[in-house]
């Protein structure tokens, strides 16, 4: 390629047509494009962190919008975008069984255990 391009993700994504056409009104009153979650990696070797969300018609445009909205001040070396509806989240009512049992199990933290003085000195 002599000019910058990319591997085609979904240029002619049907989502775009659907979301730009007025026929869609029967299904949803929301005229916005689909929502995407943006994750930015601040430096090489660091984990990607949730930066925020945005609307975009397809993956390539989501990436470009993410660059413009969340990475124009040198915040990132890499970006992930994920359709928001593809993220599976735990529900509020899950909190009890999911997280509360950890309340009385401090022994699951390594700090719970005292380290023998001899091995401390060695390290």
């Amino acid at each position: 390629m002599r000019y910058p391009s990319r591997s085609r993700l979904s240029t002619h994504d049907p989502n775009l047509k659907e979301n730009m056409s007025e026929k869609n009104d029967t299904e949803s009153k929301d005229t916005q494009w689909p929502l995407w979650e943006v994750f930015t990696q601040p430096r090489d070797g660091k984990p990607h962190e949730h930066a925020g969300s945005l609307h975009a018609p397809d993956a390539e445009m989501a990436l470009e919008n993410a660059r413009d909205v969340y990475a124009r001040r040198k915040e990132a070396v890499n970006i992930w975008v994920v359709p928001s509806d593809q993220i599976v989240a735990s529900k509020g009512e899950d909190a009890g069984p999911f997280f509360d049992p950890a309340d009385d199990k401090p022994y699951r933290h390594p700090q719970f255990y005292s380290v023998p003085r001899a091995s401390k000195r060695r390290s």
Partner: protein
Amino acid sequence: MSTETTTLTKQDALFEYLVRLADDRLILGHRLSEWCGHGPILEEDIALANISLDYIGHAASLYEYAVEVEDKGRHRDNLVYFRNDVEYKNLKITELPKGDFGFTIARQFLFAGFSYFLYKQLSDVEDEQFAGMAQKHLKEVKYHLRHSREWVLRLGDGTDESHERIQNSFNDIWTYVGELFHQDEIEELLQGEKLAADSENFKSDWKELVVDTLEEATLEVPDFDQFMVEGSRDGLHTEHLGHLLAEMQHLRRSYPDADWE
């Protein structure tokens, strides 16, 4: 600049060339800035404002270098705020009103594609400062091309309305694209010194990019051999430039000694 028949020096030519390049980018950047707060969606509003600032930034470095080459102790702002429309040398394609989003995207694509090939050549000129500037700006130009190209594909191959609007935009703007490749004695002199690009060398690459993209976007490519306007580099402009300059220069001219401090 060249009303008198004095010999054109390398210094004069380089100054004029830098000002031409800067004028194109300043005027296009200003036009694009008119989208700020009016973008079709928030994300695109931010994208257009970013790109607008990139262009104005490119213009600022080019003017800065131009006044350095001129060596008359002039400040770059002087070139921006105290020249009238006939003294501006930007191509007419850059000064046309922003139109609808389709028109803006059509122009951005045609101009970014041209700039991409131009800056690739300018990155190799035999002038360290000029080449360095071009290399730095080229990275941003690549993004401008990617952004506008992706939009051309989506608008062209989108809904009936988006297809029709961007097709009309390309038809309307076509008469202004010929001038992108205008070259005169300024370029010729500098090409001999390896200080300027030669657009003849990338005209076919640019055409190929445009044809490939428009075809992929299911758009018809207007006729390259149709009538093309000219004269911008001699200061001939559309009536739109005067209005743009009035708005851009008004404050500075009303308060010439105003200071940000």
